[in-house]
């Protein structure tokens, strides 16, 4: 089945306003400028509370629960595996789709157009200090019952680990270049209260103090933030021509210095990097694309969560495409057009504990609703161009992560999804069975793909990213034992392998990305 995404032209002409080809080759780091012909990578981290259970996301699940149509005889090995290293093995998503028409129950056929540009990581484990209140696992790879500031701002990372991915990216991406008008666009549509049910997303450490970073909760505030950031300037032709002359003239200075024999090789390289940046600006002016960036119209009185998210997602795409930001944290916490969250979902709805019908709202509505929102988001990102003219999605790295691996605050068997590949930094098109590798590795891989160095990521003298808790604390946490009960339902008989914990806790392992990160 071929999915037909909205054409770019249709999207540009959509009711929500005209989108833009990005104007500014802004946000360039000197290193990135070397590849000026390609676009800068952008990061979008979508967090959802609760989970998408492994049984709903693992392709070719042996005993899917709920039962959904699969070809007869389906088993986890119906599509061949490629063993990449001691921990992980890969399956082609294209082959999986060819076999059963879609990736999995939750990742239905709407995801098929993105399969070649995405990775589905399953069987990752969160080796965290506490597994009761772990909403921050998906963003900080850390969990704590009190949160860093104690109750009532709970659900935050353990003390010392308040370095959410979006925050680290913000610190690193703009260090050697100008900050975007919105360094990080943090949007979490929902009730605009200080403490919401989902509060674990954005944490940073400011002057040694862990702190939750505010997110934009309403469409009105989102509109205000975009307005304050300002639409990319739309210079008139004369002004553009003058600027082109100006830049030519400035480039002359760079050339003179670069050719000077008493200028060191290091300085010549720096000057060359900067000259590249100027040429990029020049290119943008010549293309005259500035006038095309126009913010989408946002209806602040909308109450339908689907429409609210669609507006917010449109706004995110606009902000990324038009150079207002290159880093986004996004909360997708609702579960229906009029359903604020998954409140009421019984913890017993854990596969194996009971066998709820496929008509159960959790499966038939809530997860599907969120999945559909995600494919809407991906379509939007794919419908606009980045500064190089390619699909914005291609130069982006979109993450969809969840706070737990299943309804009972599970820590093992996490499903993690990345789409886009950060402008070719990741090999994509794979289902990766992580073999109980830490969720930390997923975040580490993504940050490295975004161009961060280990020194940008590692904090407080600790190797790798996030928390790696001791056996004692995890075992005391509650659900660890329970996880083992479902091992027999494990399609590969290799997940939930506690014995590998100490192995993953070595510094070398903590610093190891998944092998789908290109060298």
């Amino acid at each position, binding site marked *: 089945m071929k999915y037909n995404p909205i054409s770019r032209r249709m999207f540009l002409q959509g009711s929500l306003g005209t989108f833009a080809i990005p104007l500014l080759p802004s946000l360039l780091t000197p290193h990135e400028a070397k590849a000026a012909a390609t676009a800068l990578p952008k990061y979008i981290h979508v967090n959802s509370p609760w989970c998408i259970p492994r049984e709903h996301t693992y392709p070719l699940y042996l005993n899917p629960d709920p039962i959904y149509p699969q070809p007869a005889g389906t088993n986890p090995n119906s599509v061949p595996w490629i063993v990449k290293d001691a921990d992980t093995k890969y399956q082609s998503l294209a082959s999986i789709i060819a076999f059963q028409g879609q990736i999995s129950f939750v990742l239905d056929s709407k995801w098929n157009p993105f399969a070649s540009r995405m990775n589905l990581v399953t069987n990752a484990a969160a080796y965290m200090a506490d597994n009761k*209140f772990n909403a921050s696992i998906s963003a900080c790879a850390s969990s704590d019952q009190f949160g860093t500031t104690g109750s009532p701002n709970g659900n935050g990372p353990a003390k010392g680990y308040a370095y959410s991915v979006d925050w680290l990216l913000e610190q690193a991406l703009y260090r050697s270049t100008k*900050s975007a008008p919105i360094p990080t666009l943090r949007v979490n549509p929902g009730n605009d209260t200080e403490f919401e049910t989902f509060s674990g997303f954005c944490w940073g450490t400011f002057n040694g103090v862990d702190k939750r970073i505010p997110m934009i909760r309403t469409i009105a505030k989102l509109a205000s933030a975009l307005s304050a950031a300002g639409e990319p300037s739309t210079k008139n032709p004369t002004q553009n021509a003058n600027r082109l*002359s100006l830049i030519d003239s400035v480039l002359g200075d760079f050339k003179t210095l670069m050719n000077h024999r008493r200028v060191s090789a290091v300085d010549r390289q720096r000057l060359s990097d900067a000259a590249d940046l100027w040429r990029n600006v020049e290119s943008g002016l010549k293309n005259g694309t500035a006038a095309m960036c126009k913010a989408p119209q946002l209806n602040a009185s909308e109450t339908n969560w689907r429409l609210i998210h669609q507006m917010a997602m449109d706004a995110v795409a606009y902000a990324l495409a038009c150079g207002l930001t290159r880093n986004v944290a996004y909360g997708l916490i609702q579960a229906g057009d009029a359903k604020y969250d998954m409140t009421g979902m019984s913890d017993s709805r854990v596969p194996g504990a009971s066998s709820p019908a496929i008509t159960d709202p959790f499966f038939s509505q809530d997860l599907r609703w969120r999945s559909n929102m995600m494919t809407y988001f991906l379509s939007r990102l794919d419908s606009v161009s980045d500064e190089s003219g390619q699909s914005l999605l291609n130069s982006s790295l979109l993450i969809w992560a969840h706070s737990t691996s299943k309804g009972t605050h599970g820590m093992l068997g996490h499903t993690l999804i990345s789409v886009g590949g950060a402008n070719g930094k990741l090999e994509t098109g794979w289902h990766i069975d992580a073999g109980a590798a830490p969720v930390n590795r997923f975040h580490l891989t993504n940050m490295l793909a975004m161009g961060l160095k280990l020194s940008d990521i590692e904090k407080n003298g600790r190797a790798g990213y996030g928390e790696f808790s001791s056996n004692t604390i995890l075992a005391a946490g509650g659900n660890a034992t329970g996880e083992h009960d479902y091992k027999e339902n494990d399609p590969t008989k290799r997940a939930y392998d506690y014995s590998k914990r100490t192995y993953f806790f070595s510094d070398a392992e903590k610093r190891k990305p998944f092998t789908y990160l290109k060298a």
Partner: protein
Amino acid sequence: MLRLPSRFKMRRPTLLLLLVAVLPVAFQNCGQFTAGDALSSLGSRGFSAPVAGSAESPSLLACSTSLNGTSETGFRRLTKSELVASLTDLFGANVLTSAAVQKAIAQIPDQAAPTGQFTTFDNSIPDVTGLLETSQAIVDQVFASSSAINSTLGGCGADEDICRQSLVTKFAYRAWRRPLSTSEANEMIGLAKSVGGTEGLKIGVMRVLLSPYFHQHVEIGESASTETNRIRLTQFEIASRLSFRLTGTLPDAVLLGEAAAGRLNSLSSLDIQADRLLQTQSARSLWGLFFDRWLELSSTVDPTQTTANEIGISADNLKAETRAEFLKFVDYIIFDKKGSFGDLYTDTTVFPTTDRLAKLFGLPRSDMAVTSSSGFAGLLLRPGILMSASTDTNPILRGIEIRRKFLCLKLPAPSAAIVNERAAAIGKFSHEMYSSRERAARATSEARCASCHQQSNPLGFSLEGFGPLGRPRSEESVYSNSGAVTLKHALDTYVDNLNISQTLTPSANASETALRVSKSAMAKECFSQRLAEAIRLRPLNERDNCATNELRTSLQSGRPILEVLRKSVVTDAIFWKSTDGVQQ
């Protein structure tokens, strides 16, 4: 959704604070664990060691004169504060503080490390669009008023030709810190002329600002003065180094005049200019910024309202006032009192310039410098350093932070396993039973913890005479959850050894500790290192040893800090750059 069960919603400040305290506890590899139980650092009450003792001399590094002048190997971009100061000099504060300009400048990142260290400066050339937008915003602002045009371009009036000449001979001369070559001047005038009118002048001004000759410290050197491993800078480049290093901004007209006359050839001639520059407001701003970053004043925290209630003030944003007070003190000691390194640690001047600060210092409000007799002193014994966001002091963290900031001594990171274990065991050290010092001592008493903590704890213990508000106290209060004082502990501030020198360094109290620190070689070496790093914005290396030695010697001599600052810049190395990577 995830919700906390009610049992976890209880406020348990005592336990949390103890957890905070113990987190940095479990260090490893701190060297030899000396004999004795760490609990011995609880001290012997009532004994006070004599304060007398000669100051220790900082050690001197191996100085090879053949390496002198070879430590600067490349250009450095202007820091953001240098950029802003330079633009302010060129266009005036009114232009720079306009909303449009501020918004544009905000797009340019501050690549200097915000706190603590000066060696992580990112020297990549700044983003260009930020500069482009900033220069555009500035010219839009300037050229909205004829008087602003005239002041920027040197009173050129309405004659465009004269204005274009002024653009080159006055404006660009100042901004690029040197005269333009004939070809540069012709090119710039040609550009402005080709666009024409006011728009041409605008483009001309932007042309100057966007050039690397403005936003980089371009140092080419004199072709005739190349030696084996170093190249002598031009007079204008020397002027620029001197000015930026001492004042953080462009050379002024006098200094440029000296460079044009070729009079910046000797250390004595530079000394004269340096002394003059150090009298400027720009110098005060720059060195205030140095202290602010070195001691990480941006990390200053507000106290709890519970402790603030003790003196009937609001805790809200008190940190801003204590930070400002700290900087006033530094400014006063260096520039007004012309004090020494010792004064930086022991002078008892305070600035109770607000109602809250007056209550904090226990003095009448005053806009003037006031001498305190209650124990406040120097850099160390001030609210801006000692105030904590808790109802308790945290002697462990105080000790660690003072060692790190003032003595440049870092302890290794704690082991998570030990931290967890200690956190589990710590509940028994109730604040009702034990003072903060006793709790800290007991929490760190095991040998595996003590090997490091005995290095740092004594410093913190000796400061227990200052409470969480950062003001002197005579006993330690324990608060209930409602903020009421439930009991009080007696204070014990004596320590056998502060561990800040090769010899035993006991201290009876905070004042003595401040004095001991001021006399220690470690503190002087730390200060000289941070100073040298701040000037260079890079890690020091062996090529800097000679200059570092001069700094250390100068500090040891007890000369005014102002002289030390001059000495930190005016050395023989200021005349040279390295030939590394240069095509000979």
